[in-house]
C-alpha cells in the first residue's frame, strides 16, 4: 500500500516541479493563451495541494493509530507495516519489504493455515488470537482482524490487511482469572474429598485406640494398634494442609507495614540463607502506606516465595527484595484510580521455562522430588483472599522474579 502511495507522491512531486518550472518560465507578461494556461495550472496546483492534504491525513492516521497494521500481497509477502507494527516487532521499514508474513507468527504451521484462509479462500478473519514473534524472538499474544485490499480500479483483490493489537495485558488478566477458577473448583473438590477421607480415618483411629486400651501397655498388640494411630495422624496432617488450601480461613485483616512483614520472614529465613550461601539484599521504598491484610497469610506467601527461591539456588546466589508504590491512573480521565504496593522477590536461581510459567501456579505442580506443589497455589489463593495478586517473570538459567501486588485501600479507614 505505502509503496503505491509513495510512488504516487513521487510522481506528483515531479509533476509539481515540472509545473513550477513552467510557471517561472512563463514570466509576468503573457499572452491570453498563456494566462489561460496559467489559471489552469493554478487550479491544478490547488487540487494537487488538496490531494496532498488528504494523503498526509491518511498517512498520519495509518502511522499514528495504536493498532498494528500489516499489508501483504497475493504472494503473502509484506508490503507495508505501520509505525506501531514496526515498533512492536522491532523491524526497520525497509527490512520488512517482501518478507513472508508467516515470519511474524510464532507458530509457522498456524501461519500457513491463516495465509491459506485469507489469500486462497479469501475468507476474512475476525478477532482471532495468535502469538506473534518479534525480530529478537520474543513471543507475545495478539488479537487480529483481516480485510481484503482491492485494486484502486476494479474489484481485483490485491492483498490483505491485518490489523492487530498486543493483548499481553488482557491475557495476563485472563490467566489470573482462570487460575482462580481452577483453584476454586479444586478447593471445593478437595474439601469434599478430605471430609470423606477423614470420616473413615476417625473410625479407624477410635477403633485402634479402643483396641490399644484393651491390651496391657507392653503387649505387642497394643504397640501395633498404637502404630495404626500414628499413621492415621500422619495422613490427617496432610489432609489438614489440603483443607487449609481448599478453604483458607477468612483473613483477619488489619493495617500492617509490608516492610515489617518482610523483615519478620527474613529473620526466620536468615539462618537458612546463610547455610545455603545465599546473600540477601533489600531495597524498600520510603514511607509506603500501610496495607489492610491478614499478616500471617502474607507472611506465609512470602515464606513460600523465599523457600522456592532457596530451592532454585542449590549452589547459592542472591535474593533481592524490593518494595514500591504503584499508582494506577484511569486512562480516560487521567485521575488516580488506585494504589498498589508491589513487592518483588528476585532470585538468581535456575529460572522457569516459559511454557511452565502458568503451570507453576497449579495445585500439585512440582518439579522437585520432595515437593508437594502447593506453595504457589496456596500463595496465589491467599493473596486473592486479601485482594492482591501475584505474577512471575523469569529467564531460564538466570533467575525468577515474583511480584506480589497488595491494594492500598482507603475506604476501610
Amino acid at each position, binding site marked *: 500500500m505505502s509503496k503505491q502511495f509513495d510512488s504516487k507522491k513521487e510522481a506528483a512531486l515531479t509533476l509539481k516541479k515540472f509545473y513550477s518550472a513552467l510557471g517561472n518560465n512563463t514570466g509576468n507578461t503573457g499572452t491570453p493563451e498563456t494566462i489561460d494556461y496559467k489559471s489552469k495550472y493554478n487550479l491544478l496546483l490547488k487540487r494537487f495541494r488538496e490531494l496532498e492534504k488528504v494523503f498526509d491525513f491518511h498517512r498520519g492516521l495509518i502511522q499514528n493509530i495504536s493498532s498494528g497494521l500489516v499489508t501483504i500481497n497475493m504472494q503473502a509477502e509484506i508490503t507495508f507495516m505501520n509505525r506501531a507494527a514496526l515498533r512492536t516487532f522491532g523491524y526497520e521499514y525497509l527490512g520488512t519489504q517482501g518478507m513472508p508474513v508467516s515470519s511474524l507468527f510464532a507458530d509457522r504451521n498456524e501461519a500457513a493455515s491463516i495465509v491459506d484462509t485469507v489469500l486462497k479462500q479469501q475468507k476474512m478473519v475476525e478477532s482471532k488470537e495468535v502469538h506473534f514473534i518479534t525480530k529478537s524472538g520474543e513471543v507475545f499474544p495478539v488479537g487480529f482482524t483481516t480485510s481484503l485490499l482491492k485494486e484502486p480500479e476494479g474489484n481485483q483483490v490485491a492483498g490483505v490487511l491485518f490489523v492487530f493489537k498486543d493483548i499481553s495485558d488482557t491475557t495476563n488478566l485472563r490467566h489470573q482469572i482462570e487460575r482462580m477458577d481452577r483453584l476454586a473448583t479444586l478447593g471445593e473438590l478437595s474439601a469434599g474429598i478430605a471430609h470423606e477421607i*477423614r470420616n473413615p480415618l476417625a473410625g479407624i483411629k477410635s477403633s485402634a485406640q479402643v483396641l490399644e486400651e484393651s491390651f496391657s501397655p507392653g503387649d505387642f498388640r497394643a504397640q501395633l494398634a498404637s502404630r495404626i494411630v500414628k499413621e492415621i495422624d500422619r495422613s490427617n496432617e496432610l489432609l489438614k494442609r489440603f483443607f487449609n488450601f481448599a478453604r483458607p480461613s477468612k483473613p483477619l485483616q488489619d493495617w500492617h507495614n509490608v516492610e515489617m512483614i518482610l523483615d519478620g520472614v527474613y529473620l526466620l529465613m536468615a539462618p537458612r540463607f546463610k547455610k545455603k550461601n545465599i546473600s540477601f539484599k533489600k531495597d524498600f521504598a520510603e514511607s509506603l502506606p500501610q496495607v489492610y491484610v491478614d499478616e500471617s497469610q502474607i507472611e506465609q506467601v512470602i515464606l513460600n516465595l523465599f523457600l522456592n527461591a532457596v530451592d532454585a539456588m542449590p549452589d547459592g546466589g542472591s535474593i533481592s527484595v524490593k518494595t514500591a508504590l504503584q499508582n494506577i491512573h484511569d486512562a480516560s480521565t487521567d485521575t488516580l484510580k488506585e494504589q498498589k504496593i508491589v513487592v518483588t522477590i528476585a532470585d538468581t536461581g535456575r529460572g522457569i521455562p516459559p511454557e511452565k510459567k502458568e503451570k507453576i501456579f497449579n495445585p500439585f505442580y512440582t518439579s522437585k522430588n520432595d515437593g508437594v506443589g502447593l506453595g504457589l497455589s496456596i500463595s496465589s489463593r491467599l493473596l486473592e483472599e486479601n485482594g492482591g495478586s501475584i505474577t512471575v517473570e523469569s529467564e531460564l538459567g538466570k533467575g525468577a522474579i515474583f511480584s506480589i501486588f497488595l491494594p492500598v485501600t482507603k475506604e476501610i479507614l
Partner: protein
Amino acid sequence: MAKRLLIVDDEETITFSLYQSFIHSPKDYEVVTAASGEEALERSRENPFDLVITDIMMPGMDGFDLMAALKKEAPQTDVIIMTAYGSNMHKDRALSEGARTYIEKPFEMHEFKKMVIDILG
C-alpha cells in the same frame, strides 16, 4: 441412675468404636447409638438423654437440625457437635446454636472421654 448418652453418626465404625469404648470404661453410662438424625430424635422421644453427641453431615436430618429439634423437645439434653470438616469451619455456628462443645474428627479417644466426663460427671 446411670447417665444416658446417645452417639449419632452415619459412620458405623465411629458409633461402634465409641460404644465399645464407653461400655468398657469404669464409668457406668447407658450408651445408645443412632445412625441418623431421625433415629436419634425417635430414641430421645422414647426416653430423653443427658448428652447427645452428633455428627453434622448425615443424610436427611443433619446434626444442626437434630440439635435444634432437641433444644425444643428435650431442652435439658446437652449436645456435642463432631465433624470431619476441618479448620473449625462450623465451630462458631455450633456454639452459637447451643452446643456445649465441638470436636473435630479424627479425635483422641482420651480427649473425647474427658469431654464426656466433664459434662456427665
